[in-house]
């Protein structure tokens, strides 16, 4: 049986007459004594006869010069630099990067404060609430300056302290969303000079 498998794998080349004389003779001898392999050979021949029809009818046609033109056109498209790349100056990329950094910094700042506000409101216990109310009153007093100039000063101070004083950040986190947005809008309108 194992021997048959070995011989059957040679059958396609046997039909195509591509076996060496020595191998062919051995296979011939085996076929005489093995009806299983003989049947396999007949099956194979009829399958190859069907496949032969496909070979005859599927003669492929390509217009040769057109093929090369197509290849060249595809290569041209892939290797041609895009118009955007040609007209994109380096300073534009640097400018865009700077704007992105500023926007990202601002959004992180805002996100940080918003999340702190939500977190602390949720965790507030009743004992802490009294202390926080007091702090809020003090802060409200602070946030009710008499002149615009002092208001601006206050906002600058708050902004500086935000980066330098963690406690103040905690206080700011007690702002309501609308209070914070008011503060945020005012801060946007003044020229911050934080060092």
């Amino acid at each position, binding site marked *: 049986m194992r021997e048959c498998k070995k011989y059957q794998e040679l059958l*396609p080349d046997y039909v195509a007459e591509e076996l060496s004389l020595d191998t062919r003779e051995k296979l011939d001898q085996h076929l005489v004594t093995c009806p299983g392999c003989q049947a396999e050979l007949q099956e*194979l021949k009829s*399958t190859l006869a*069907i496949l032969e029809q*496909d070979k005859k009818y599927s003669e492929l046609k390509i217009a*040769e010069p057109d*093929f090369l033109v197509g290849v060249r056109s595809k290569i041209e498209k892939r290797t041609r630099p895009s118009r955007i790349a040609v007209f994109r100056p380096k300073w534009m990329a640097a400018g865009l990067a700077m704007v992105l950094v500023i926007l990202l910094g601002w959004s992180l700042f805002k996100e940080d404060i918003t999340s702190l506000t939500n977190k602390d409101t949720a965790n507030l216990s009743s004992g802490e609430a009294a202390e926080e109310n007091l702090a809020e009153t003090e802060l409200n007093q602070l946030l009710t300056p008499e002149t615009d100039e002092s208001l601006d000063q206050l906002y600058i101070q708050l902004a500086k302290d935000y980066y330098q004083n963690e406690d103040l950040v905690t206080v700011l986190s007690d702002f309501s969303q609308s209070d914070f947005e008011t503060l945020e809008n005012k801060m946007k309108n003044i020229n911050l000079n934080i060092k």
Partner: protein
Amino acid sequence: MSNSIEKKMVPDSDLELIEKFQKGEQQAFNQLVLKYQKKIYDLVYRMIRNNEDALDLAQEVFVKAYSNLKDFKREAAFYTWLYRIALNLSFNHARQKKVRSFVSLVELGDTLPAKNNPADDLQQNQITMAIDKAVLTLPKKQRSVFVLRYYDQMPYKQMSEVLGKTEGSLKASYFQALKKLQKQLKAYR
């Protein structure tokens, strides 16, 4: 003088053309395309069994060759390298398009020459369709072995270089492929 004329009559070998291309001679690449376009087109068509896509894909083979030819190492013959690209692209195409079956009669109609007898046409279409379907259901390795051996009549030694398999395993794969086709095409015998 006569020597130089004789020399010009002999076409450049693949390696000579590649060297010229690597030195910037675009015409050398065109010659490689013209030399192999039919073989690559046939190979791709036999693998994916779709005439229209085969044209596009065969062109893609040369586009890919163009972009990688600068780094071509002479360890393998050019045609071996090109065949590998063609087989890989055919497999990717089959995966993308899921060309496992159902080749439409419209598509087949484009590939077949016109005949006088409509009954013959119909029968032939059915056989071709059945063969297409049977070939497409062969596993990747068996399909490439079958296509290279049966249609391209490539010797096992060369197939071994293209597919990276031993000659013994290729013979076994070819026989297994034929057995599977035999099963699928039983109704047409």
